[in-house]
């Protein structure tokens, strides 16, 4: 009986809401963007995840920023890309010029001293910048130009395209706001870099560190003024982050306005919704306007709904994220490349692409995207082929026992595998189940062990796995596979433990080769070599799917994270007074 009351209450509530006046968007209506999780900490120099990185790029600017239209690094605070001067075969000098218009919010210009200060701050012992410290330790010195405070040279250890991009890819922080007395200026950068962790830091550094920690800029980003276009207006943990456009931003006056220095939306509201389905419902309810990286099945279901098509626009771009299955080559079981080749043929990349991505994305033969000029198109695609698996297993010396299992007389072990992957990816679960079932048909037991992301990294680094499934995040900014497959990277990102002198040499050659035809030859050879050795099986490149409200201007979508150019988001000009039924 009470339910009648409850029911009628709900009904009246519904009717009240549905008869509310049709909403209008104005320029000041926030654009709601979906995030799967909270960025947790917004310290621009200690970025824990992709969301924090997106947020940092709204608040701060680096010398170079990614241009999502062309997918290249473009000058931001720098006036142009750095001039490169190679010294010997292991050093280079990068010549930077800052934009004259660039200023902090208080009107002071952005100068070389700010860059110098930021580099030193990263290296200050006692600050939680362990990752950045190692990442930027290749920058050994900043040489200021005494005649021009906006002109400086970075002395770098190492050469290569990636290093040039990285040299401009950190946020510049204001020296005046953090260190008004310029106490860091007399300390050389190299001295801070080489500081022994057990030695007490210099007094000025200790004072700065304690001041800096006091500000707790990871939680209160407003304590760390940046020269980016937005400021953080509100942050309700695990709920939303609201960014407000600065009324007067220095880049507003630039003519012509470079793409990386555009910021059209007045308010950007990042809504945190971990659940994909809940987020899709919110998109339908117009609580969200932009939903990047949408799972394929939800994306397709939305696309087939006429009501959703009326309200939403859909974008698909090839991304640089590659799903791959890797082998732990240190294990005796998987030491032989024939065994790895045999197991690789139990995976069904084409079927999995159809099943998990509904066919969106692209199969690949190697670690290079198929649309790249370096792609080796003469290699045949890998396919599900159990008969070949049997042949290869026999060739590798495995004997089928009477009880159905496989035994190797030299290794003296039965063939049984553990497969690890991230538990929050449903596509990985499907891949794992497919492989498990295919292996079970041949009598190979496979144990699937999904793990939470951080625990997975620990397990992979410790070598506690036989096979893994993971996404390799690539960039179009060059091909450096050393971190994945070089002997030196074993114990870090080279989880497979793979390393041969020939491939090591090849990887080093690829990373420094500047001549295009030669680079093409090397990369094609590399793809053949990886197919032969098969330390990992590249399955397919993902597509980046994005859905956004039609009330927005067409999104500039990109295959690069976060998948869209946030600076170009804005309401369509005509819709200011258009009522949405």
């Amino acid at each position, binding site marked *: 009986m009470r339910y009648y009351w409850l029911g009628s209450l709900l009904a009246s509530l519904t009717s009240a809401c549905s008869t509310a006046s049709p909403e209008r968007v104005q320029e000041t209506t926030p654009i709601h963007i979906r995030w799967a999780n909270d960025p947790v900490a917004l310290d621009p120099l200690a970025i824990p995840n992709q969301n924090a990185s997106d947020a940092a790029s709204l608040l701060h600017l680096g010398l170079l920023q990614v241009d999502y239209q062309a997918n290249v690094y473009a000058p931001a605070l720098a006036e142009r890309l750095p001039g490169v001067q190679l010294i010997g075969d292991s050093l280079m000098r990068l010549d930077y010029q800052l934009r004259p218009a660039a200023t902090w919010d208080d009107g002071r210009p952005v100068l070389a001293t700010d860059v110098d200060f930021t580099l030193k701050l990263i290296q200050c012992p006692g600050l939680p910048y362990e990752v950045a410290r190692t990442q930027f330790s290749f920058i050994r010195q900043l040489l200021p130009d005494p005649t021009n405070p906006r002109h400086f040279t970075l002395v770098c250890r190492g050469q290569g395209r990636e290093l040039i991009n990285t040299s401009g890819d950190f946020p510049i922080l204001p020296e005046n706001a953090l260190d008004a007395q310029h106490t860091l200026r007399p300390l050389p950068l190299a001295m801070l870099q080489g500081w022994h962790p057990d030695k007490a830091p210099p007094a000025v550094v200790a004072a700065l560190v304690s001041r800096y920690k006091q500000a707790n800029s990871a939680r209160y980003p407003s304590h760390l003024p940046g020269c980016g276009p937005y400021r953080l207006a509100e942050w309700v943990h695990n709920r939303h982050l609201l960014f407000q456009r600065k009324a007067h931003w220095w880049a507003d006056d630039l003519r012509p306005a470079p793409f990386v220095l555009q910021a059209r939306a007045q308010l950007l509201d990042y809504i945190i919704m971990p659940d994909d389905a809940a987020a899709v419902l919110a998109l339908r309810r117009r609580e969200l306007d932009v939903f990047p990286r949408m799972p394929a099945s939800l994306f397709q279901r939305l696309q087939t709904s006429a009501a959703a098509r009326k309200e939403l626009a859909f974008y698909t771009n090839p991304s640089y994220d590659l799903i791959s299955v890797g082998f732990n080559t240190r294990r005796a079981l998987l030491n032989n490349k024939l065994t790895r080749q045999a197991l690789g043929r139990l995976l069904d990349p084409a079927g999995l692409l159809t099943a*998990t991505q509904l066919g969106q994305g692209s199969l690949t033969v190697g670690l290079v995207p198929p649309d790249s000029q370096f792609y080796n198109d003469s290699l045949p695609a890998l396919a599900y082929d159990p008969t070949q698996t049997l042949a290869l297993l026999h060739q590798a010396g495995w004997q089928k026992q009477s009880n159905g299992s496989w035994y190797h007389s030299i290794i003296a072990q039965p063939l049984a595998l553990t497969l690890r992957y991230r538990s929050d990816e*449903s596509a990985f679960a499907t891949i794992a*189940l497919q492989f498990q079932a295919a292996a079970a048909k041949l009598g190979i037991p496979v144990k699937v062990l*999904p*793990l939470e992301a951080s625990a997975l990294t620990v397990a992979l680094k410790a070598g506690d796995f036989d096979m893994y499934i993971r996404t390799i995040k690539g960039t179009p900014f060059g091909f450096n596979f050393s971190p994945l497959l070089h002997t030196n990277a074993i114990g870090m990102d080279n989880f497979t433990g793979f390393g041969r002198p020939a491939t090591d040499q090849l990887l080093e050659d690829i990373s420094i080769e500047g001549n295009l035809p030669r680079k093409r030859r090397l990369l094609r050879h590399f793809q053949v070599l990886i197919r032969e050795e098969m330390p990992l099986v590249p399955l397919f490149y993902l597509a980046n799917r994005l859905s956004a409200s039609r009330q927005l201007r067409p999104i500039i979508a990109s295959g690069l994270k976060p998948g869209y150019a946030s600076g170009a988001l804005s309401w369509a000009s005509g819709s200011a007074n258009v009522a949405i039924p």
Partner: protein
Amino acid sequence: MKLARRTPYHANYWLATSWLVLLLVVGLLAPWLLLPYPAATPDLLHMATPPSPLHYLGTDPLGRDVLAGLVAGAQRLVLLSLPAVGLATLVGAIAGSAAGFWGNKQLRLPLASAGWLLAAGWWLATLPARAAVVSILLVISILFSWLSSRQAVGSSRRTFPLPLDSLVLGATALLGAVPRLILLVALAAGPPLSFVQLLSLLALVAWPETARLVRAQMLRVRVQPFMEAARASGLPAWHIWLHHALPHACLPLFSFAPLTLAGLVGLENTLAFLGIGQAPDQVSWGSMLTTVRQDPNAWWVVAAPGLALLCTLLALQHLAQALNKRFNAG
């Protein structure tokens, strides 16, 4: 009340029993059932398809056959939840009845046994200098028991009371300090648990309720006249406990065990639904239900496992009610 005993079981009871028997049979025979698809194998060409002649109950968003998942869930129930309830009931009955029977002061152990226990503990924990310490302890306790046995029979032997009641109550209070679901979430998170680990964890959170119930019943049984008679006849205490007190104290368990099972089935499926400590090849009803969150329109993923879960829980409830009427009405 005697009338109630003679009343025939309700139709509901037979319905409930037949559903549970069906589950039991399906669960036990699952490996030999001729299903068109295995439970944990995705059908890559049919992801999240509605029921069709190909997949009678459809497939979930991971491509697993729902019918096969139903059977696997029944199997999991029979092989995981049922033994867990058995274990919990056993542990709970023994601990609760012993605590109620002996209380804090009645169970007196000879002092020498303390030496034995200490020595065993020292050895098992491999504490420092274990060979030396353990041999000294053993020598002392052997000497001590020899000495005490030489003393006149009938004079008070040196004993100490084992505070059994406090120990059991303390353990139940400890495990009852937070809700069972919270305790499971806190302990079971992280890497997927093995079958035995999950089973023992479920038994761990389930036994205190049984123990409390049996203890309360035992306190009532203890003061019955027939217990006085048994004590007067000079039977040893453990004999009275095992043969006379325990059967009476465990009487309420007939109707309580189905409820414990229902509670554990609900808990286990909630854990699977939250995705804590589970791998996708361990298919259960809860883990099938959770996939609907990837595709809110896949009603068939919810319908069959949800219905099976509800029917099971309802059947267990009816069974408990019927058994309660039969055994505890008097």
